[in-house]
């Protein structure tokens, strides 16, 4: 504090850096506060009528169905590459028979949820940010409000709910495809039959692996929806702001996903003895 006060009292380049750092920290915490308020408003509105079910279903379709191909391709390649890269090391230690167990546990617990959430943050989070941002700058959100519709309910609540519900399903599909990709490599390289591979893979999994991993994807989905809608809904500065909203939605969400993941693993460790 003394150093900061000393530097702030002296007109040096160092002082301007300190001031800029202080301003940026202030803005960062102000944004966290705004986002918390935004999340609070979501929980306040989510239980109120009208529930906008038609728009919710449309968003579920947009986010779920249209992300499916990307998730399937990514999951397949993930399983394939992960198995190919791990094989030589396990062979060296004579532990290649552990491959299905190792792959299934790592994909289900950690790699699958995090990778697919990151992909959805890129595809869905930025899409929400850009869509709501452009609606904001072209006064479409104002038009909605003037027509007697609550735009927060119609645009924000439906999108957050849709991605919160869809992400766990996408992760389940992605995990399954990743295991299938891994099974193909094992079948081609090690002659392991699909039945044997999946028998070993599922034997090594327990509810303690599956439940925490699935629960954390609900939080991942909520984070993607919250940040994307927050950035888009509060977009300013015209078309430049739309780009910024889209870009910062991805950056903030990615950071938030890792923080949530850390907390989820920490909590799972206490309650599920992983």
């Amino acid at each position, binding site marked *: 504090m003394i150093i900061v006060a000393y530097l702030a009292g002296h007109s040096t380049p160092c002082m301007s850096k300190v001031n800029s750092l202080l301003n940026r920290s202030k803005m960062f915490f102000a944004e966290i506060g705004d986002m918390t308020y935004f999340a609070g408003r979501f929980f306040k509105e989510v239980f109120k009528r009208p529930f906008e079910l038609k728009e919710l279903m449309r968003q579920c379709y947009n986010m779920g169905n249209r992300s499916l191909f990307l998730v399937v391709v990514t999951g397949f390649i993930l399983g394939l590459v992960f198995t190919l890269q791990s094989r030589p090391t396990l062979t060296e230690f004579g532990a290649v028979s552990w491959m299905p167990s190792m792959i299934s546990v790592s994909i289900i617990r950690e790699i699958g949820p995090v990778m697919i959430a990151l992909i959805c943050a890129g595809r869905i989070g930025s899409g929400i940010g850009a869509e709501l941002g452009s609606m904001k700058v072209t006064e479409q959100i104002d038009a909605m*409000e003037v027509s007697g519709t609550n735009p927060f309910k119609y645009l924000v609540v439906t999108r957050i709910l849709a991605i919160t519900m869809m992400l766990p399903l996408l992760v389940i599909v992605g995990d399954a495809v990743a295991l299938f990709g891994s099974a193909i490599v094992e079948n081609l390289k090690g002659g392991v039959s699909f039945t044997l591979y999946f028998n070993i893979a599922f034997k090594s999994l327990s509810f303690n692996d599956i439940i925490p991993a699935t629960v954390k994807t609900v939080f991942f989905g909520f984070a993607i929806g919250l940040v994307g809608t927050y950035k888009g809904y509060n977009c300013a500065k015209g078309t430049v702001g739309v780009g910024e909203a889209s870009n910062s939605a991805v950056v903030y969400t990615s950071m938030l996903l890792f923080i949530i993941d850390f907390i989820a693993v920490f909590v799972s460790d206490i309650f599920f003895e992983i």
Partner: protein
Amino acid sequence: MDNKETLKPVLEVKNLQKSFGDNHVLKGFSLKLYEGENLVIMGKSGSGKSVMVKCMVGLLQPDSGSITIKKQDIITMGQSELDFLRTEIGFLFQGSALYDSMTVRENLEFPLRRHKDKIKDFKGTDESVKQALESVGLLKSIDLMPSDLSGGMQRRVALARALILKPKIIMYDEPTTGLDPITANEIIQLMRSIQKEYNTSSLIITHDVDCARVISNRMILLVDGTNYAEGTYEELSNSNDPQTKAFFKH
């Protein structure tokens, strides 16, 4: 227009003030809009016209003053009451503000689906949409996307959307801005015919002198956030005041 004493004001603004930080945009603006009247608010760009009209529909919260629509103070009313009152107000945005992910039909259906119970003699969603589009001459564009329409057509669809709930008051924010003179004239004529057909009271925010000349019953000049001058088009355009005169120079 009849004598003001015999008419009821449908909208009344008193001493409206609004600031953004140190920028004092509105400094005590007042107006009365009477039943069936076309009131034009003129002012330079950045004089606070759009801020004023956004305060009137509750999109912005004024710092002080009162806004009364149909004898109800909109500043103090709750969200659900405000949403209900908004169904009696049509608003045409400067950039049309059509929902670009929806077709023309869906744009018009959007307010209708939520508030159709508030319309007297409702003839069904499809019929109402077609009727509104017919009144702006765009029935053929019913299944097009807003991006397939020209600027003038978008403005007309936006007008049809503003009319769909049969509002008693219509607010136009720069209705002719960004349009060529021929299309602008079409929009002005459309506004006149709508006023006759639906018997609405209109508040028109503009800096287009031709628009003001054709459509206004009365005008208010907004300068530095306050009422600078008020009167009919003829009275103001023949004024000797230099600042008032400056608005009417071509």
